[in-house]
Each structure stands twice: as structure tokens, then as C-alpha cells.
């Protein structure tokens, strides 16, 4: 590692590392690239050498998010399905489309709905911008959930990554908060009643339920105060909270090391032994016995061998291997949400009307499972004890599930328990979303669908 990761060069050395200005005729491109201006912006030397690639990472603030080198296995799709990365991309898309929407949107009960209509008919690409924002939002919730599921089944929340799992649960909660507060903003019948139903779920919290709900919506009923509150949360509080948590989350991914099986005893053995700070600054580089190779340095005095143990280098440079994949995934994600935005319009029903409840009134889809459970069981059990219990156990899972094993066959209890909860949640959500009609009566979606996103 040492030979490939030089320490940061000082300015003079850096200049010396620049490709030498070749004598003779130079192309304009070369002239620009060797000019002072270019070199003041891109300070790393020639990218074609390992040293250059490492320095590229050192000298670039954005590449600093990544380790200089990553285990080759991290590059495989199967490792993470890139779900965390896709969620981050979706968030960037949401920030940029959201800011566009802010230019046209007033958070007032008298104008919000009209603004949405104007956006539809009077603003170039306005409808598309709204569609992309909405589909990205739904997708982000879905991707974050899938990411959580993936991390669970991989056992990647175990030591030393316990705390990053907790951070991830925080990010999950903020994502739901984003989606729920955004849902109200168009101020149509769909948003009004979905948020009415959603906020009234909070009423069932024992003792402080009503207080919490009133704090959330700012009064008895959803109204102007609620709209303004949700707007402030949606465009200011939650973005800041998410950025801070995300920053720490990604930084921890790097510092805790990737949870990637690198063979050897115990999964992720590579990083589970607390990295010895002096010998190995990057935890990814600490390898197990199986991954070392002895090199004979010399034979001294017949019996004594002098040998050096050095790790087999199974790492590759982030730039370009990882980065290229990320760019492709980001472009793919953007393509998907733009295609969705072109193909499907975000719904806009009639203006919110407190005097008429549309049939059926469903909470946003990620809460519909809860709503479905509420129609079967006691509200205290289905609405509060069950979800709060599941959330609490999930949040502190790494401290509850102390089993160090990450292979499925050695953690059957955890996997079975998680899978049962997952299946219940999915079934309840699908039934609530697709199989419920007016009066919450059972319907078959192929006859008449009441799914609304």
C-alpha cells in the first residue's frame, strides 16, 4: 500500500510531477492543459500512473468522499446493489427539482393549489419538473427501504458498523418525513385527506398522542398553520438534517470499512479486527491470514528464515473503477425518473375540501400498511405498540443481535424474525394499497383500482 499511496506532495513536488512540457509543436489541448490556469484547477499529475491516480483522490475535495482504493469485490453489483448510492442520487435530483418548484409555489391555502395548476399549464417543463420530483420521492422511499433490507440480510450492521446502522435508521425516518410533509403541499383532496388520516394515527400514542399531533399540525385541524409548518420542514429543516446525517453516514462507511466478504475466517474479517492505526490507516487494507503471502527475503543461518508477510493486494483504484460505475448508475437513475416523469403525470385532484372526504381516504403508500393493520386490530396494538416496537428494535438491532456471524446459516433466528416482519409489512401494504376500496371494503384491483400515489 505504501508504495502506491504516497503522502501528499508539496506544491513544488506537485509541479515537478506534472507531465513535462514536451518540446516541439504542442496541440492546443496540451497547451491549455499545461498552462498555469488549468494546473491551478486540476492539481493532480498525470492520471495514467498509480501515483497520479492516488494524488487525484488526495487533491480533489469531492473524491475525498471515496477511499483511494476499494476492495475489488465492492465493485460488484451484488455487493450492495448500489442502493445507498441510488438513494443519494435521488436525493440530489429531489433537491434540484425541489428548488425549481420553490420558484413557483406559495405555501398558502388560498394559492398553493392554484400554483400547482399554473405549474401544469403555464410554466415550460413545469409539469415535468413536478412529476420528476414526485416519482423520485416515491422511489427514494422505496430505495431507502430496500437499502435497509439489503444491509440487514448481509449482516453489515454488525461490529464495527453498529452506529452507522443507527444513523441509517435516522436517514430512513427523515426520508419518510420528507415524503409525508411534501405530500400535503399541493393542497388537493388527495394530500388533505391522506395527511388527515396520517396525522390522526399519531393520536393513538398513549398519553401524549393528541399533544404530539397538535404540535405537528399546529392546531385542531389541518389548515394554513399546518401547510406552512410542513413547508418549512420540507424545504429547510429536513434537508439540513438529512445532509448532516448523510455526511456522517458516508464518512462512516469509509472509516468503518466496506462490509465485503473477502474470504478468510468470519465474514468481513478484514475489517472486524480493530485496525491497527499505525500499520494500516485504511481498515480495508488489514487482511486476514489467508490473504497474506510470504515472501522469502533471505535465509540466514540455515534454520532461520527472514520473511515478510504482506497482504495480497485485492484492491483497485476508486478512480476510475468505482467512479465510472457510479456515474453510470447515476445516469441510469436520472433516466428512469425522467422517463417516469414523461410517462406519468403526478396526480392533482380537486382542491382540498374539509367538508367532503373522497372515498376511500388512504394514507400515503408507506403508511397504508399501518392503516390496514389498524382496521383489523386494536389501535393501541396495531397503531402504536407494534410499529413503535419494530422501529425501536430495528434502530438498536446491532446492540440487540450480538451474534457476530454474518453467514445466513449461523444467524437463522435474526433472519427468520426479520423476514416475518417484512412479509407482514409487505402484505399489509399491498392489501391496503390495492385491495381496498370505498369504506375500506375488500376489492379486487383488476376490476377497479383505488391506488393513488
Amino acid at each position: 500500500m505504501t508504495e502506491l499511496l504516497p503522502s501528499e506532495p508539496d506544491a513544488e513536488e506537485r509541479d515537478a510531477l506534472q507531465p513535462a512540457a514536451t518540446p516541439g509543436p504542442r496541440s492546443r489541448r496540451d497547451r491549455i492543459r499545461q498552462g498555469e490556469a488549468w494546473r491551478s484547477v486540476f492539481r493532480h499529475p498525470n492520471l495514467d500512473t498509480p501515483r497520479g491516480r492516488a494524488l487525484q483522490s488526495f487533491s480533489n475535495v469531492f473524491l475525498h468522499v471515496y477511499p483511494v482504493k476499494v476492495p475489488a469485490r465492492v465493485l460488484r453489483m451484488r455487493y450492495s446493489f448500489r442502493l445507498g448510492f441510488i438513494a443519494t442520487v435521488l436525493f440530489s435530483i429531489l433537491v434540484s427539482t425541489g428548488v425549481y418548484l420553490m420558484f413557483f409555489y406559495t405555501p398558502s391555502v388560498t394559492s398553493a393549489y392554484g400554483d400547482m395548476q399554473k405549474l401544469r399549464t403555464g410554466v415550460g417543463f413545469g409539469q415535468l419538473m413536478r412529476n420528476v420530483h414526485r416519482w423520485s420521492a416515491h422511489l427514494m422511499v422505496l430505495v431507502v427501504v430496500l437499502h435497509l433490507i439489503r444491509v440487514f440480510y448481509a449482516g453489515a450492521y454488525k461490529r464495527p458498523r453498529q452506529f452507522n446502522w443507527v444513523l441509517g435508521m435516522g436517514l430512513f425516518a427523515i426520508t419518510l418525513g420528507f415524503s409525508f410533509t411534501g405530500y400535503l403541499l399541493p393542497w388537493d383532496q388527495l394530500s388533505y385527506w391522506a395527511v388527515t388520516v396520517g396525522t390522526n394515527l399519531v393520536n393513538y400514542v398513549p398519553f401524549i398522542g393528541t399533544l404530539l399531533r397538535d404540535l405537528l399540525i399546529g392546531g385542531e385541524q389541518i389548515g394554513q398553520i399546518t401547510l406552512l409548518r410542513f413547508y418549512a420542514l420540507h424545504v429547510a429543516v429536513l434537508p439540513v438534517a438529512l445532509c448532516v446525517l448523510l455526511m456522517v453516514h458516508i464518512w462512516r462507511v469509509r472509516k468503518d470499512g466496506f462490509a465485503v466478504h473477502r474470504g478468510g475466517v468470519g465474514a468481513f474479517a478484514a475489517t472486524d479486527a480493530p485496525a491497527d492505526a499505525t500499520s494500516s490507516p485504511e481498515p480495508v487494507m488489514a487482511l486476514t491470514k489467508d490473504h497474506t503471502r510470504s515472501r522469502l527475503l533471505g535465509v540466514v543461518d540455515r534454520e532461520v528464515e527472514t520473511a515478510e508477510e504482506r497482504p495480497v493486494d485485492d484492491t483497485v483504484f476508486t478512480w476510475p473503477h468505482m467512479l465510472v460505475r457510479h456515474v453510470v448508475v447515476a445516469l441510469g437513475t436520472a433516466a428512469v425518473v425522467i422517463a417516469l416523469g414523461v410517462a406519468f403525470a403526478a396526480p392533482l385532484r380537486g382542491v382540498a375540501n374539509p367538508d367532503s372526504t373522497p372515498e376511500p381516504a388512504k394514507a400515503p403508500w408507506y403508511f397504508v400498511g399501518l392503516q390496514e393493520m389498524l382496521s383489523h386490530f386494536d389501535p393501541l396494538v396495531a397503531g402504536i405498540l407494534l410499529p413503535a416496537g419494530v422501529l425501536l428494535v430495528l434502530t438498536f438491532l446491532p446492540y440487540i443481535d450480538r451474534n457476530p456471524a454474518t453467514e445466513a446459516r449461523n444467524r437463522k433466528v435474526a433472519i427468520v424474525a426479520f423476514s416475518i416482519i417484512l412479509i407482514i409489512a409487505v402484505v399489509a401494504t399491498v392489501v391496503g394499497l390495492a385491495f381496498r376500496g370505498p369504506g375500506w371494503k375488500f376489492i379486487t384491483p383488476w376490476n377497479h383500482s383505488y391506488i393513488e400515489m
Partner: protein
Amino acid sequence: MVINRRYFLRRAWKACTAFLGGAAVWTSWEMLKARDVAAGGKITLGNPVDYKDGTATYVREGRLWVVNAGGHLRALSQKCPHLGCRVPFCDSSGRFECPCHGSVFNIGGEYIQGPTPRGMDGYALSVEGDALVVDTGSVITGPENSVQNFDSTAKGPSCAAGG
């Protein structure tokens, strides 16, 4: 115990931080607590004899229903005790049928079926002179699901689509 400078400072900055935190919580609470926009008030509803037995009259101003359940006048909040949808009265069945999750109440607001935790909430009714007055400031929490004082039988078909 000797309180030296170091000891004092070590405690002092923590105390200051705690104080600031407390102040922040209090400030946030005062700023964000629910503002009671509709504190409720009295609404005059006209002559009680206008409300015939078996009818439910909607009072838009108070978002409530005035019902005559077998001679008993009641004012019922339109808000479903389950998750807050507006509960319409179904003339054909003579019951309140919530469109959201199928809670059904009899004309007196008592539980018949569905996921609701209790019967419909109501408001205090009184007669002043020969006018009926409802006080939307005094909420009467709905009766428990076991309470059955009024007739729950359906007069006719339900209004909920598909059923």
C-alpha cells in the same frame, strides 16, 4: 470540597450549555405549540321542533350534525373518531357511514361496526328561549363501543359503494 478555578469552569460551561438547551426547548415549545384557532363558540340553530325524528341535519358553520334520535336531540361532530375523516349521514340506511375505513354509527352516534375506537364525539346542546344552541367549545367524547341506547338497525341499503 475545594472549588478551584478549573473545577468551576468545567462545571460552568456545562451548566451554561444545559441552560441554553432548556431555553431552546422552551422557546421552541412556545413558538410551535398548537394555536387554538377555532376555540369554539356558540351557534344558534333555530327551533328544536324543526328537527324531526330520524333526521340528521348538517350544520356547516360548526362542521357538525344535529340529529333527532328517537326524540333525543344531539349534536355530533362530523369528524370520525377513528382517523378523522368526515362522516356523512346515509339517508337510506339511517346511519352514519364513514367512507374511509367503514366505521358505521347509528343515528345517535353510537358504534355499530368498523375500526373506530368509540362512538362519534358530540357537543353540548341547550335550549335558550325557543332556540337550540350548540356550544362547539365543549366537546363530549363519544360513548364507548359497548353503549347502545339507540336503534342500530339499518332502515335500508347502505350508501357505501359496492356494499
